[in-house]
């Protein structure tokens, strides 16, 4: 088939870009066809033909012109004259209700006691059917008994003893079920004496006494008895402990007991917990406190915990009372009221009761003016820390006003103690948490006036305040305690120096302020206490620090001689303290002795720092390295090692810094230290390590090629980047080491799963810094790189491919594979290999053209241009080669192959090409092959036989390929009529086709068969021809 003329039309409108190509081809002598292709610009084109059968030239021209005209009319223009498609613009480059007023109502203690005594003396029926009528007592006796205990009314003792075992009711309300005895036993513990011990002993020893009565009687006995009998009692209970605990309790070592209790299955022996509180020796107490702090508030341990709580209340054991209170405040109930699950303790009702009860106990104490109030309240406050704070909240309130809740809002007794008289906080009736009164907001500075309940009681017992200042880790507690302490000037004046230092050392402003007040009173310019100055300068109270700096400046000579003071300043918690220290040290020269002492103190302090203080450590280290440089060189290697092992980066940095200075003096650093520095998790420390490594002699570095490879592939970017200059130096001077490094890096690219960003770094190194090592990389390695899954390895392979491999080193198959490679440079290398080795390509055209089938568009595009070029002529494109190209399954390759066929087709190859084309499965090629039927198969019965599968395939296409079918049928008609053997081949095929339900093709099949039959009557037809029967037309109505 020869291309006679061709027109390419294009159509642009809006987003539409279409092409229409029209060909006029010669398929035989004076036989022409008009074919067309159309579709989106750049996309696969669809084929068609305007001539079902070949026509004469003038007819073909007419069809051709008509088609061109119709397309031009509908808006197409000639591609050669069309304006170029609007070039896409290049994107530019920018591309509570107030608590009961405490102590305000002066109550005569005696009168109150008198009332209690009267009630206790009033015996008789407890039944109160008609309250008003009989004048029977309305106050339950048990309440009065309990009150007697609370108020500690000594006079009640005989009355109480007399009341033992008098309850007749079966009801708890009437003192039954041991209720009265329980209350008496409790009250006697608080107000009893000698006589009570006997009575309680009897109650405890009585077999009929109930368990809870016995328990509380034992507690009271412990309070009232002498030390000897208490010890005996405790020894007896220790004897009764399970064996492992017994031994540990007797060992006298709290740690041993703690370990034993830790290992002991408390939940299986819940009673032991209460037993331990009865025993309560210095050995068992720490472990016991720990246990009640962490035992789950669930069965079976909750019950003993409750007993312990009651006992602690009786004993006024602030610690245990406080811990239990804290547990109740911070532990959610196990179920909500009304949703009780069986066997479950500590529901919401219980929790609510216990929370209220804790404050009730304190309130009663406070109202009674009991000094134990301060002790117990301190015990309740102490377990709370800043970590218990919740986020301040704002909730919608009534009338659209938001309600604010502060950080410690949920805690009941805690807020009562601290804010009972506050203008800021209140607890609404039935409220569960303390809200803020308007206009106060969370986070504001606390007011200067005091806000706590029972302030007078605190002032009477300032030791509790001191305890809070010393032990609490809770800001509001310190705010309260600081204010309260300042109201006790007499107590403050008496304080020891140690206590003042303690106050100053606390990290709470309110407490440090108290220390500052005292320090100001005690400061004497003539004989300044340097210890106090140091503590004040490092305190949390800013005005105090400022004052201390002034004082130290005044006493500079003394200060500089005091290494302890200087160390305290350098390690100061506040940034301004450290800045002051730096300024002080920089502006003066320390004597060597003081300097070394200071460095020693600082190193010790740094080593002792907890992991959270990195900023402090960094500052201190900076101060040391800038101001104490001359004193640093003396630190020993052992200390450096300790510093390097410290988890804080600041401390490690000091170690690395010291190592650097050390090096400059002696020139010898153990290798393990360098490695330790290089493996540090902190960037700055590793940087020092890299510097140390860089200072080693080059030959030594070159010998450590494995280390260098490891550094280059390290997961830390700083190490990788810092190792790069080393690599560059080694690569420049040590070729052997360079080759080893190149091999190692390539290996790591191929084998190891490298961390993110590492492959790109390795690639950069290999590409830029180790270029001279490329020469040694062999062909196999390059091929491995190219076929690796990693894109970086592939890219490197592409680079090496261009430089290391000569075009003839690879065979054509390999080059063709490279043309489908994912990396552009590799594909380009493959193209250039083709271009450089033209002779080989031309000699092996059949294999070489397979590059046209490459996976990548750019490779195919290149290949089209390459094979279109002037270097290829008809001699190269033999029929076999052309068929090889058209065998591709890609539409564009097939189109290119047809273009080649039209250009380079040799008539002599015609018959074979036709046969080979006929086996192609694609519809487009089948259609294309019809163009050759006429010329190369006409009049050749042997060819006809071989083409039968092709005809069957074309004619069996379902609802497709109309033109091809028509041409084939035309051809079959022609051939079948030619001679008998041909007719015998064609007829079965037509008979097969005649079974279609497509009216068009069934008719065509029959028609062709008939035509053959007419031409060759001797050929038998598989169909029977019914003679035509003429039916007379029905007569129209009205006709005779």
């Amino acid at each position, binding site marked *: 088939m020869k291309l006679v003329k061709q027109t390419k039309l294009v159509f642009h409108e809006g987003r539409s870009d279409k092409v229409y190509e029209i060909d006029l081809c010669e398929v035989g002598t004076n036989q022409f066809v008009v074919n067309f292709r159309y579709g989106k610009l750049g996309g696969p084109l669809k084929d068609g033909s305007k001539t079902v059968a070949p026509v004469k030239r003038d007819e073909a021209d007419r069809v051709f012109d008509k088609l061109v005209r119709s397309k031009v009319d509908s808006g197409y223009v000639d591609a050669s004259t069309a304006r170029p498609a609007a070039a896409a*613009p290049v*994107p530019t480059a920018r591309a509570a209700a107030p608590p009961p007023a405490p102590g305000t109502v002066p109550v005569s203690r005696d009168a109150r006691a008198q009332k209690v005594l009267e009630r206790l003396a009033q015996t008789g029926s407890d039944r109160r059917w008609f309250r008003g009528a009989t004048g029977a007592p309305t106050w339950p006796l048990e309440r009065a008994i309990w009150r007697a205990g609370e108020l500690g009314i000594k006079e009640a003792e005989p009355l109480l003893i007399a009341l033992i075992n008098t309850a007749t009711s079966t009801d708890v309300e009437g003192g039954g079920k041991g209720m009265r005895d329980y209350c008496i036993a409790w009250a006697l513990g608080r107000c009893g004496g000698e006589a009570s011990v006997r009575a309680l002993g009897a109650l405890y020893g009585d077999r009929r006494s109930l368990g809870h009565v016995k328990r509380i009687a034992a507690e009271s006995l412990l309070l009232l008895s002498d030390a000897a009998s208490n010890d005996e009692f405790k020894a007896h209970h220790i004897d009764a402990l399970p064996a492992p605990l017994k031994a540990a309790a007797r060992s006298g070592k709290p740690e041993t007991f703690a370990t034993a209790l830790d290992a002991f299955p408390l939940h299986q022996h819940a009673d032991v917990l209460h037993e331990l509180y009865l025993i309560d020796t210095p050995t068992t107490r720490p472990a016991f406190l720990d246990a009640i702090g962490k035992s789950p508030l669930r069965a079976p341990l909750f019950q003993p915990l409750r007993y312990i709580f009651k006992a602690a209340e009786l004993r006024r054991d602030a610690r245990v009372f406080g811990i239990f209170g804290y547990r109740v405040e911070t532990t959610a109930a196990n179920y909500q009221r009304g949703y009780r699950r069986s066997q479950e303790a500590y529901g919401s009702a219980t929790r609510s009761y216990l929370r209220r009860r804790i404050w009730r106990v304190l309130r009663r104490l406070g109202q009674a003016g009991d000094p134990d109030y301060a002790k117990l309240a301190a015990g309740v406050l102490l377990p709370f820390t800043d970590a218990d704070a919740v986020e301040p909240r704002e909730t919608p309130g009534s009338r659209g006003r938001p309600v604010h809740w502060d950080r410690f809002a949920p805690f009941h007794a805690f807020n009562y103690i601290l804010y009972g008289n506050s203008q800021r906080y209140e607890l609404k009736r039935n409220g569960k948490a303390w809200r803020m009164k308007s206009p106060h907001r969370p986070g504001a500075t606390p007011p200067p006036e005091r806000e706590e309940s029972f302030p007078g009681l605190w002032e009477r017992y300032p030791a509790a305040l001191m305890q809070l200042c010393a032990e609490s880790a809770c800001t509001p507690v310190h705010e309260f305690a600081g204010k309260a302490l300042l109201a006790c000037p007499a107590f403050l004046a008496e304080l020891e120096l140690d206590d003042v230092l303690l106050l100053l050392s606390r990290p709470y402003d309110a407490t440090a302020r108290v220390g500052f007040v005292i320090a100001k009173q005690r400061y004497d310019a003539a004989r300044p206490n340097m210890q106090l100055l140091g503590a004040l300068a490092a305190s949390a109270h800013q005005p105090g620090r400022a004052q201390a700096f002034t004082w130290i400046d005044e006493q500079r000579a003394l200060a500089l001689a005091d290494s302890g003071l200087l160390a305290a300043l350098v390690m100061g918690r506040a940034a301004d303290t450290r800045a002051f220290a730096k300024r002080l040290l920089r502006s003066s020269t320390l004597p060597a002795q003081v300097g070394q002492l200071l460095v020693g103190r600082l190193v010790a302090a740094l080593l002792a720092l907890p992991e959270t203080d990195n900023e402090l450590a960094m500052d201190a280290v900076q101060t040391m390295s800038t101001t104490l440089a001359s004193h640093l060189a003396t630190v020993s290697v052992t200390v450096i090692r300790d510093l390097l092992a410290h988890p804080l980066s600041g401390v490690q940095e000091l170690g690395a810094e010291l190592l650097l200075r050390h090096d400059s003096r002696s020139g010898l650093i153990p290798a393990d230290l360098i490695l330790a520095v290089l493996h540090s998790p902190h960037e700055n420390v590793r940087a020092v390590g890299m510097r140390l490594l860089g200072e080693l002699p080059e030959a030594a570095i070159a010998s450590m090629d494995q280390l260098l490879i490891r550094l280059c592939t390290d997961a830390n970017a700083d190490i990788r980047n810092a190792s790069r200059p080393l690599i560059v130096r080694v690569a420049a001077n040590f070729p052997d080491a360079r080759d080893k490094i190149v091999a190692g890096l390539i290996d790591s690219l191929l084998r190891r799963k490298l961390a993110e960003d590492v492959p790109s770094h390795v690639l950069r190194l290999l590409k830029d810094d180790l270029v001279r090592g490329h020469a040694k990389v062999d062909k196999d390695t390059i*091929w491995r790189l190219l076929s690796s899954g990693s894109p970086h390895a592939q890219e490197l392979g592409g680079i090496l491919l261009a430089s290391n491999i000569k075009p003839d080193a690879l065979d054509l198959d390999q080059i063709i594979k490279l043309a489908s490679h994912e990396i552009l440079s590799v594909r380009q290398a493959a193209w250039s290999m083709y271009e450089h080795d033209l002779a080989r390509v031309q000699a092996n055209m059949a294999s070489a053209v*397979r590059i046209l089938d490459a996976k990548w568009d750019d490779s195919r595009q290149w290949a089209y241009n390459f094979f279109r070029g002037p270097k290829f002529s008809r001699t190269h494109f033999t029929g076999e080669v052309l068929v090889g190209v058209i*065998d591709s399954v890609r539409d564009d390759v097939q189109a290119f192959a047809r273009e080649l066929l039209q250009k380079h087709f040799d008539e002599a190859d015609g018959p074979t090409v036709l046969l080979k084309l006929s086996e192609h499965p694609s519809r487009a090629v089948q259609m294309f092959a019809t163009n050759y039927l006429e010329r190369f198969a006409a009049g050749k019965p042997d060819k006809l036989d071989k083409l039968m599968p092709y005809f069957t395939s074309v004619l069996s296409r*379902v609802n497709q390929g109309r033109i091809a079918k028509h041409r084939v049928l035309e051809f079959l008609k022609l051939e079948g009529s030619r001679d008998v053997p041909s007719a015998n081949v064609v007829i079965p095929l037509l008979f097969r086709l005649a079974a*279609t339900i497509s009216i068009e093709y069934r008719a065509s099949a029959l028609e062709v068969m008939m035509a053959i039959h007419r031409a060759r009557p001797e050929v038998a037809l598989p169909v029977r021809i019914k003679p035509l029967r003429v039916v007379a037309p029905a007569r129209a109505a009205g006709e005779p």
Partner: protein
Amino acid sequence: MEFQYAFKGSSTVANRPEGTDLSFSPDTKREPTYFSGELRKGIAFREAISALHDVVVSDLRFKPKDKSGYKEWAAKQEAIDWDQVAAQRAGVATQIKEMQAKLSAIYRRSSERRAPFDKAKQAYFDYLYQKDRDAWFVLDPVITVHPDEVFFECFSQDESSYGRLGTSYEVFRNIGEFACGTTNIDYSSALYDEFQKIRSYKTTKFQVDPSGFDVRTQGEEDYKEVKIDLPDSWVRGFLQVNSAMGLPARTFDLHPMDVHNLCFVLRRHKEKKGPRSMRFILTPGKPVRVVFDPWGIEVVCRRTEYHGTTAEEIRVWGRRRLHILERLIPIAKKFTVHLLGQGLPSFYVADLGDMSFTLGLSGWTANDWSTAGNFDLLAPRAEVDDYTKRRVFDGLKEKWLDTPDDLAKRLGLSRAAILGALGAWTQAGRAMYDLAKGVYRVRELTREPLPMATLRFSNEREESATRLLTANSVQSTARASEGGGVELSGTVKDRSHTYRASLTIDADARITRATCECNFFQQNKLFKGPCEHMLALRMHDARRRPVVFS
């Protein structure tokens, strides 16, 4: 269900000018199975294996169109429309129009500027799509070497079509050594393109061998570990279609042009509403007629005569799957159709001379709950004890393939026992019935035996429904509803309760509406599929209808 394979290298087709080498890489974890030979009938093989590929990638499930782009545009447009409405009211339309012109110019410019980027992005996505295309294939085809033929089997992605290509040894020449057995082969979409290049004038070597043809280039991956997580429904579907092959069926032959005609009707028409079924009207001694619903187009297969004894009409669904056969029309001598009954699997066996291609179609293309409970193809057919089963399997494995009669003679067992045992092995995926030759063959689908207990039912409700049915606690009445469907209602006694249930089955035999009194339905309606009582009702009703193999 997770399957693990280890292929040595990938399957490759090397095309050279002088020939083609097909090398399938088998699963090295299974018993060694190998075969090699040279294809004599390349073209026919090419067409047949391409049809098999069509089965592998066939997925006719409904996929909703991605309308996000349109919706975005519509939202923008709506905003503009509202603006316009507001503008007209305020009398500032001209100003707005001006602004809009400006805005659209900006939009246009922005899209023009972004065009190269968007184009590149799309190209990249296309590239990724092509690159990961192999992830599409659910299960690589299974290849089995037997003393008389080599055959490939596969199952489609939409769990509805089964394909089997059997190639007898006549197709090959220069057959090398072979070892019988079954193995999975590595398969990728690139292979399909290479198949298309098979030609008769080029020698085509065919090989299933772990070692492959040539020494692999150094450094390439030696082993390819593949883990495939197959849905249970997929495996169940495969086994259901497989076990259906062994059941008695209505059989007749079709001329290739008859299949052409069936496809022709489907190519020319597009159904927009149901029923989407195809009715085979079989009358003894008359040509087979096929009627396409809902158009009522009738195709008369004039060159086929039905040889059965009773007149019947069998409806099948999922007819678009027949297009898989199109490539076989030119090379097929005839197609044999096996119909099991309405809504049951159907089989089309193409006779390709020395090859045969079996296309098995499940009852519907979508195997979802709406057709559940129709038939239990994995129900045990006959009670056969384990010892006999084992004997039958060992007996079959001696010769790899045998007819039930010969096997009965050889083992001295009754034909019923043999059939029961073979049915059980087929259901377990360890044997298969070859429709083309009428023999049972050993074919172990997987390396480890499949967990049959979990596979028989798709959920526990199906299991309970079967239990209710066997306990005879179902009563149902059916009455025809509008549009050719059926309305079923009845009671199901489940322990102490009796539930009333009713369901509507449409003309496509799918459950369209259902109610039940049970808790499952009250809570889930039909969102989790029908409850056991509805299923029991449907199964009870199905029992009364004529089923060919019942």
